[in-house]
């Protein structure tokens, strides 16, 4: 039956018994071990365990510093002290009175009631140290411990606090740090963090958390029965996190803040070639410092319920209709698809009729005969209405996509918005309606459902400035520049550049000129359902050899030419003239 019965089943079974007996016998040796350790020497180990006076203390490292382009610190650490204790030593009612009394005598406000509450809140386990008081200075600490009545159960523990010397000027870029939340802790797979650790919550602090956080050290100390430290048993140094240098310029941020003057809006300036962001200012802003030091619920809710939404990052997280600033994209589509060339003209009577609908030009009296350069210069709506009907919705959307509209720019900052390219599928999903030609007409002048972030618009103009590279904006100076090419020919690029140069010299954007730098750019006055018109200006300078591109948005600011233009003019002039 079986071909391979050289070694009989009987022999196998005999050997099985041997092996099984070895297994069982060796397991009984484990029981002998348990008898020895748990029964014979059990008492000895019980006392060893209860007198186990070793405590592990996690030593949190200072985070890496963050500097601006010229080395000015944007985020640094200062050393403060927390007064810690083990809850097991703070159980008695008198303990709370005693501790609170000592603090109060030394001018640190504390009540027994408040302390008790705080201990209960922080309590995890009796042997896990809690903080009785935080953010003490060295002077306060030495004053306290010199007091002969200072409770021996308390010990000072140095901690690093994060401060942002730039304060509100760089709040949306830097973000802030805070204690890790329960959810964040459970999301972590790498077990790097423990409760009480500080992590980046937003901005650069969150984006570069891994670079900035450093390596946690630990200390094993032997304590006596009251938890007082007797001697160090083991010590592993914490290692400071890595520093980061940004492309941002703090002085230029200050200038942006001065120019925006508390109005709701955004200003962003970026190097046209490598995408390095020089100015990234969202207005109004907030001070991140209190957020890292602990903020009361009342202050917090005041901050997040503020109608002006200071915590919102309008530069990369706010989406707005781009208005006429979008016309460069329509123009690129028209030229590249051969719908028009420099010789094609449209007569603008001030309105455009499409079936029963009438679309008005912003200038009711009309512009007369316009070619593409003139239409950009005068921001003639009718020219783009007509041309977009000829171009068709699909091509228009395709060229929007080519310029990165509807996708994240990829800036190294969390919370970026995609905007909304708002194509056919989107409209069907959102409104259960198909796409009408009227939608195309609205789209051609940056109205309708199209939404863009100021950063996306700056990127589009940078592509015109640098000859066709759609750069990825970056804040980290050490990050390699990245881009992709947009497929617009040099000749057509040149036509559009001429148009937006004329905007500033002779067209709607004259207010941007006159600050000593030659700017090419485009105004935008975007209608929206909730607010007064948004004022836009996006442009680059110097016009013949572009270095910086700037985009400014003022929410409900009114006209792009009178409000947006001067802001960009002054900002670029500051960067190119006074700053060099």
């Amino acid at each position, binding site marked *: 039956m079986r071909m*391979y019965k*050289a*070694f009989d*089943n009987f*022999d*196998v*079974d005999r*050997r*099985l018994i041997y*092996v*099984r007996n070895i*297994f*069982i016998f*060796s*397991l*009984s040796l*484990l*029981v002998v*071990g*348990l*008898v020895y*350790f*748990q*029964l014979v*020497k*059990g*008492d*000895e*180990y*019980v006392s*060893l*365990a*209860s007198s*186990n006076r*070793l*405590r*592990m203390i996690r030593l949190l490292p200072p985070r890496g510093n963050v500097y601006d382009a010229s080395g000015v610190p944007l985020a640094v650490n200062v050393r403060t002290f927390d007064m810690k204790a083990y809850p097991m030593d703070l159980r008695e009612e008198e303990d709370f009175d005693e501790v609170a009394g000592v603090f109060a005598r030394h001018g640190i406000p504390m009540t027994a009631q408040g302390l008790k509450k705080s201990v209960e809140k922080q309590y*995890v*386990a009796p*042997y*896990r140290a809690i903080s009785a008081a935080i953010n003490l200075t060295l002077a306060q600490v030495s004053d306290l411990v010199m007091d002969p009545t200072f409770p021996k159960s308390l010990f000072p523990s140095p901690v690093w606090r994060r401060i942002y010397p730039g304060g509100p000027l760089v709040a949306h870029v830097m973000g802030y740090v805070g204690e890790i939340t*329960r959810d964040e*802790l*459970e999301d972590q797979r790498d077990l790097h963090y423990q*409760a009480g650790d500080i992590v980046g919550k937003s901005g650069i602090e969150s984006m570069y958390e891994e670079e900035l956080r450093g390596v946690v050290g630990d200390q*094993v100390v032997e304590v006596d029965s009251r938890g007082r430290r007797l001697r160090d*048993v*083991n010590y592993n140094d914490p290692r400071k996190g890595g520093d980061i240098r940004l492309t941002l310029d703090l002085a230029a941020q200050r200038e942006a803040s001065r120019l925006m003057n508390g109005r709701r809006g955004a200003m962003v300036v970026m190097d046209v070639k490598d995408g390095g962001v020089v100015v990234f200012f969202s207005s109004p802003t907030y001070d991140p410092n209190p957020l890292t030091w602990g903020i009361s619920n009342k202050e917090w809710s005041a901050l997040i319920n503020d109608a002006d939404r200071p915590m919102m990052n309008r530069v990369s997280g706010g989406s707005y209709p781009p208005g006429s600033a979008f016309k460069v994209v329509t123009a690129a589509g028209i030229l590249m698809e051969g719908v028009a060339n420099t010789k094609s003209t449209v007569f603008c009577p001030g309105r455009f009729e499409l079936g029963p609908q009438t679309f008005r030009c912003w200038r009711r009296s009309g512009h007369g005969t316009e070619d593409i350069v003139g239409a950009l210069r005068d921001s003639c709506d009718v020219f783009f209405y007509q041309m977009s009907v000829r171009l068709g919705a699909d091509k228009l959307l395709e060229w929007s996509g080519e310029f990165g509209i509807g996708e994240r720019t990829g800036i190294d900052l969390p919370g970026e918005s995609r905007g909304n390219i708002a194509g056919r599928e989107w409209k069907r999903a959102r409104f259960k309606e198909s796409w009408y030609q009227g939608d195309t007409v609205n789209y051609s002048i940056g109205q309708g459902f199209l939404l863009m972030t100021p950063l996306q618009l700056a990127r589009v103009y940078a592509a015109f400035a640098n000859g066709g590279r759609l750069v990825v904006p970056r804040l980290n100076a050490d990050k390699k520049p990245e881009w992709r090419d947009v497929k617009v020919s040099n000749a057509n690029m040149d036509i559009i550049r001429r148009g937006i140069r004329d905007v500033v010299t002779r067209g709607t954007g004259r207010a941007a000129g006159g600050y000593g730098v030659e700017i090419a750019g485009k105004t935008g006055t975007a209608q929206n359902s909730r607010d007064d018109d948004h004022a836009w200006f996006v442009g680059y300078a110097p016009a013949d050899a572009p270095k910086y591109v700037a985009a400014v948005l003022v929410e409900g600011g009114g006209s792009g030419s009178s409000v947006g233009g001067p802001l960009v003019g002054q900002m670029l002039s500051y960067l190119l003239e006074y700053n060099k």
Partner: protein
Amino acid sequence: MPFEFNYSWGEIRGGLDRTMLVTVLVLFALGLASIYSAGIGVRTSTVVYVVKQLTWGAVSAVVYVFVLRAGYQDFVRYSYWMYGGTVALLVVLSMSGTISKGAVRWFQLGALNFQPAEMGKVVLILAMSRFCSRNTPNSLKNLFMALAVFGVSVVLILLQPDLGSSLVYVAVMFAMLAVAGAPGRYLGGMVLAGLAAAPFLWGTLRSYQKLRLVVFLDPYVDPQGAGYNVIQSRIAVGSGGLWGKGFLHGTQGRLHFLPEPHTDFIFSVFAEEFGFVGGVIVVALFACLLWRVVRAAFQTKDVRGKLFCIGVAAWLWFQVMESIAMSMGLAPITGLPLPLFSYGGSSLLMTALALALVQSVAISPVKDRFSTLT
């Protein structure tokens, strides 16, 4: 060819070794309790590990039932392919893979970490069952062929470096060769060769591995460093006393004295809280499990089944011995999980798979009886 289950529910009901199944479930439940206890203090939320372990338990249960229906014969039939695949995987892993604590042992599969060394244990046992049942290792030629084919995986695991798993592989191979019929002088020769090679192997060990072996011999060489774990674990076990400190009342694990309490030192956590009585019960449960596994080997007439069962028994035995002895400081720290007990998905799943195959071997005589009746 459509897939067909080889075993009917009736056959499974008739032949299932219920004692073995209940033993497995009790061990898993005790492990869960210990994982819960060990989780306190590691994280603010204590249930994370328990929930993950339960999820893996559910996956394992599904695999278990599937294997019972499919039967071990097909697994043995395709075992050479599986073995070849595993070796290929280990080769790939030695070139890429995620580095965890200095050792490359994991594959990142989406959200899951996957350890080929764990899967390799079952596959090695399957392939060896097939190989040794056809080529009885009672000639030098057959013995060397087996050593050459299966030694490859040991070397690859050793290179990762995963000393613990490679020792499991060696124990499994030795037990299977012994039962398959290698003469005593061959077995003695292999032991001598191993001892002779030890000094060379020592040279290939990483410094942390050497340190672990040294502190095993004398933990007080480095009481605050590598020896710290050994001392603290021994205190945890010893202070459990006769009855233990009670569930969730252990202090050693909770106070972070024990490193990795939910994986490597799970038995220390258990023994601290449930004492000598609990410890003996766990050892007895493992003894019962091994006894039933070997019993399945007796009852089948199929040499492949016999060899498979003894391979699984050797694997479980080695890890139980190592893990429990380690918790008392009687064996060096190797990071091997206590089967069915320690937290860890790959290990649990593969143990369940292996035990399902053993069940299948236990069921097979019943199937034979059914088929002779008809």
